[in-house]
């Protein structure tokens, strides 16, 4: 099998020849890998099987226009993203930022409707087919990364508390905002699909450590139909496309809904929140998995041996058909020892089915 065939076949549960590796490093660990391993580009150094294709490029890149929406001004040096969401830096929290919500104080539907949402309908996607072609020529899988697809996108603009209250009140703001973000996400998703990506990575956090973030009822009322709409349209363009979906935390009750919406691969199955063996047994014939190696526990705190054992144990559970793209469950933070990252990679490379 080629590298591409290997990953795609593994994700489709049709067998695989070697175990691919993949993870995300925080800036600190990226530096460390450069220094200690000479890994200028860690994705290339470790031979990740996929590469990201850039999103649509907006004609209007000006984010200053959002500043007026912050009644309490943003802290100095804060970044504003293309949705107008503010990210305030803190000297104590490294690469992490505190989020501010431009729509938090809005009270009427009119205010929300007048908000300058990013204009993806007139954005430029001419680079996408070119990038996809290049990636495939290198025997790699082309990935469109569109996490924070509906719920998180709306939450980040409106604030979780306001949005939950809008939803609970069944008000027009919630209806409009969810429709708007779905419309914009759909434009981006279709552009990726038309450009020929193999994998589209969607996601919205709907889990907490031990419970779901909202009731199934609320999820099905507001979010599931919109997610399904996006996936349906994308699969109409390319029935072969593989849909990844990310949600942190415990989401077991949501898994049947995600399967119904058309998700093919679920990320990250946080090992601290759900038992992979159990989840695999229940749903492993309908959906594949990406992740399962805990970033709250074994990656930062385990020994290299324990990391390897976790990787092998989960690969054994998935068996020879595949269905598990084994990887750390989240970005690796500064406290993860380099030895554990190398142990994960080695475990993948040396895996022999027991």
């Amino acid at each position: 099998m080629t590298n591409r065939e290997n990953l795609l076949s593994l994700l489709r549960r049709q067998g695989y020849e070697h175990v691919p590796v993949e993870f995300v490093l925080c800036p600190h660990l990226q530096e460390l890998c450069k220094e200690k391993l000479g890994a200028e580009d860690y994705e290339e150094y470790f031979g990740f099987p996929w590469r990201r294709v850039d999103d649509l490029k907006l004609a209007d890149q000006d984010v200053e226009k959002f500043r007026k929406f912050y009644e309490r001004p943003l802290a100095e040096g804060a970044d504003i993203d293309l949705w107008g969401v503010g990210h305030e830096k803190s000297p104590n929290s490294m690469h992490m930022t505190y989020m501010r919500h431009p729509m938090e104080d809005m009270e009427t539907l009119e205010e929300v409707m007048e908000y300058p949402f990013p204009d993806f309908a007139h954005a430029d996607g001419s680079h996408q087919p070119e990038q996809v072609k290049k990636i495939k020529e290198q025997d790699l899988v082309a990935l469109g990364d569109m996490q924070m697809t509906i719920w998180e996108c709306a939450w980040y603009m409106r604030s979780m508390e306001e949005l939950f209250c809008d939803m609970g009140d069944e008000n027009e703001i919630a209806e409009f905002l969810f429709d708007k973000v779905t419309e914009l996400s759909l434009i981006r998703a279709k552009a990726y699909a038309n450009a020929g990506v193999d994998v589209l990575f969607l996601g919205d956090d709907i889990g907490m450590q031990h419970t779901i973030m909202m009731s199934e009822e609320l999820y099905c009322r507001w979010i599931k139909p919109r997610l399904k709409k996006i996936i349906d349209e994308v699969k109409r363009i390319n029935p072969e496309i593989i849909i990844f979906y990310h949600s942190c935390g415990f989401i077991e009750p949501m898994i049947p809904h995600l399967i119904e919406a058309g998700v093919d691969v679920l990320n990250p199955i946080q090992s601290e929140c759900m038992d992979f063996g159990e989840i695999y047994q229940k749903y492993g014939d309908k959906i594949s998995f990406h992740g399962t190696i805990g970033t709250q526990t074994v990656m930062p705190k385990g020994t290299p041996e324990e990391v390897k054992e976790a990787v092998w144990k989960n690969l054994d559970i998935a068996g020879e058909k595949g269905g598990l793209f084994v990887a750390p469950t989240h970005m690796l933070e500064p406290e993860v020892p380099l030895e554990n990252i190398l142990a994960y990679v080695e475990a993948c490379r040396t895996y022999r089915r027991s």
Partner: protein
Amino acid sequence: MSILEEISEFLQKGKRKNVKALIEQALEEGIDPKMILKEGLMSGMSIIGGKFKREEVFVPDVMMAARAMNVGLSILEPKLVEAGNEPIGRVVIGTVQGDLHDIGKNLTAMLLKGAGFEIYDMGVDVSAEAFLEKAEEVNADIIGLSALLSTTMLQMKEVIDLLKEKNLRDKYIVMIGGAPITNEFAEEIGADYYTPDAASAAEAAKKAVESK
């Protein structure tokens, strides 16, 4: 159903307008504001907290109930001050230094408020010194620390160590919580209470100040 039970019911459903109207009506009827607070708002928050703990309701329900509580409190507070109502305790709460997660911390603060505590919310990314300074300033009973990252949970120990260093450890009840926290960790760093959810936090806090 009595009007106070009705207030509690509407609060649990997060119906702010009904809560507001009924409180105004109750005040007109001459019902003691302390009674409205206890049997209406606090009882409603305690019921919704219990349901949250048993996973019958979720984060949005608690947030909406807390909103309704706040609307109610804004009408009641001036009357309560007149009546000389004292909170059952004072809590300084915040997310520890380096950590910017605040949803769980906010929820905990809401349920503590619903249980009758006065809350001093320090926000996120709060240093050990700032916690201590505020606690001293407001004469707090409890210091509540939240951390969601395996990196930042170690900051909780810094706060406790600082208290020890200043010989103030026994003066405050230290409660900790957040996704990665466990009982073992709480014992290891010498915190007084860990609870896995916000409703249990409010119950534990009540017991703690009673037995202080």
